[in-house]
């Protein structure tokens, strides 16, 4: 308990669609240990991004947290439930202690505002500096640290004058400037080319080590998980299907969905004639499913899978799976 920075307990998020509340995230439990990078992996629509957005409260207006808690252990042995905070307090706490990097560098920066003022804005809001001059100096130092050439010049330039990779570096600087305890990266490299992706992933790792930050990385790319995460949670249809260390996940994936996912990724070097695929499609979000969400598409399913929701079981030490047959 002591070294857990953030604990998400039985989190349920529902969206109001055509008058009906449909659950997108169904009872998710996540623990983020101090100084570790946790990966949240899953395909689109599995609720991974929604889960992350409940932490610093930037859920879209249509989504509501209907159950569970987001317990923040910023300073030792205190516990605040971020889901129950007022907007004022939530912004105060999250703005300074939780940094976030978004997916689309093209649109995540205000096109009408200079880079410098956007990055230093958080410092001024949370009064971590005495005056603008100090904020400017700190910003330029950080822009240099994240690898932006001629930071003084770039301080005054506008977002449209930078490339996608540069803008993502600015986003990282912006997220890290208040020296937060937790960094949330929502698909940080999905919109970038593979060469720049490698550099940004290295930069995120470096920043986490330099500022001893823990991080949550949301992605659908197993390669990204392998490269920078310590622990990984596999999500499907709003539930955690499997969670363990990254090493063990790739050595012995236990849940049929994880195995199917890994098998369907084309690799460099030898590939089979046809890729192994998971049959069928992701079911309609609104439909209520009695048994395990994956039972219709599961290769080694049993009777129980169709009628009884599997509970999370610890098959091996620190390796949890939500499946009857694993």
């Amino acid at each position, binding site marked *: 308990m002591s070294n857990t920075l953030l604990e998400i307990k039985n989190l349920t998020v529902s969206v109001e669609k055509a008058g009906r509340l449909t659950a997108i995230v169904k009872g998710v439990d996540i623990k983020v240990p101090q100084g570790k990078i946790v990966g949240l992996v899953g*395909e689109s629509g599995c609720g991974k991004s929604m889960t992350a957005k409940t932490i610093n409260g930037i859920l879209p207006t249509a989504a509501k947290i209907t159950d569970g808690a987001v317990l923040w252990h910023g300073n030792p042995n205190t516990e605040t439930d971020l889901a129950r905070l007022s907007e004022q307090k939530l912004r105060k706490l999250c703005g300074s202690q939780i940094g976030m990097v978004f997916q689309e560098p093209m649109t995540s920066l205000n096109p009408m505002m200079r880079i410098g003022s956007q990055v230093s804005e958080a410092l001024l809001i949370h009064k971590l500096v005495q005056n603008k001059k100090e904020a400017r100096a700190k910003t330029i130092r950080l822009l240099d640290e994240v690898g932006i050439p001629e930071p003084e010049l770039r301080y005054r330039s506008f977002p449209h004058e930078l490339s996608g990779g540069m803008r993502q570096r600015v986003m990282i600087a912006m997220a890290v400037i208040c020296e937060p305890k937790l960094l949330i990266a929502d698909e940080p490299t999905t919109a970038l080319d593979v060469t720049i992706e*490698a550099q940004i992933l290295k930069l995120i790792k470096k920043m986490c080590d330099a500022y001893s930050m823990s991080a949550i990385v949301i992605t659908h790319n197993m*390669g990204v998980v*392998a*490269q920078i995460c310590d622990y990984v949670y596999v999500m499907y249809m709003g539930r955690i299907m499997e969670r363990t260390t990254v090493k063990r996940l*790739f050595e*012995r994936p236990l849940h049929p969905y994880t195995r199917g996912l890994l098998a369907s990724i084309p690799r460099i070097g030898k*590939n089979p004639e046809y*890729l192994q695929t998971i049959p069928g499609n992701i079911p309609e979000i609104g439909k209520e499913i009695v048994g395990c969400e994956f039972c219709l598409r599961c290769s080694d399913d049993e009777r129980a899978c169709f009628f009884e929701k599997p509970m999370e079981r610890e098959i091996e030490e620190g390796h949890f799976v939500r499946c009857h047959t694993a």
Partner: protein
Amino acid sequence: MDGALIIAKGIHKSYPIGRGKRHPAVKDVSLELYKGETLALVGESGCGKSTLARILMRLTEADSGEIYFDGDQISGLAGRDFRPYRRRMQMVFQDPASSLDPRMKVKDIIAEPLKTWHIFDNKAEILERVKELLDMVELKESALERYPHQFSGGQKQRIGIARAIALEPELLVCDESVSALDVSVQAQILNLLKKLKGELGLSCLFISHDLSVVNFIADRVCVMRGGMLCETAETEELYANPRHEYTKYLLSSIPVVPGMQGA
């Protein structure tokens, strides 16, 4: 590898970007695509691969250069003379949502090429062919009467493929056709493309930025950078020992997924 289906020589294309300056999208590119092969055009965004593909299909006009289709020069032809060649090459697009007209039912979307070329003279035969095409892309017949927004990304891509093969083209151009899809759906579509290529004896020009996908689907690979072709090789040859510096750099940047194929 019998004769070349597509030959392109010295293709140039640049776009004006204000104040007289022009951005060179494609610089002096020459390539051949042989019948029955899958040639991949791979490179990062902005390297000109999509522009080149659209030039070969004459959806965008090149500034200069010659294009030959199955031996005949098609680069200079006027609209009416070029139209017969339109039938022989078709395209599958990247964004499933924008590639299907939201206002048309699936049966009309797939039937549109058949009606445009008056392949069949009565409705029943058209409907029959549409059903056959739906079956080839593994979609149920219930899809006929529904609108595109009632389908998932993968299913929309299948409808796009059915439309593309309706006219039995010789060349299928896939412009980042799996990039917008999730991994599991991507695998299904890649398998479908490979199966159809074999069954229908298609040649395929596959545009992508994802080297792993290209490694699975392509026979030969052209690596593009800044509008130029920097390396062309057989797939195994390219991945085993890449010659060009940029190709090496590309390959080294891919976040490797550990563990052997299919645990």
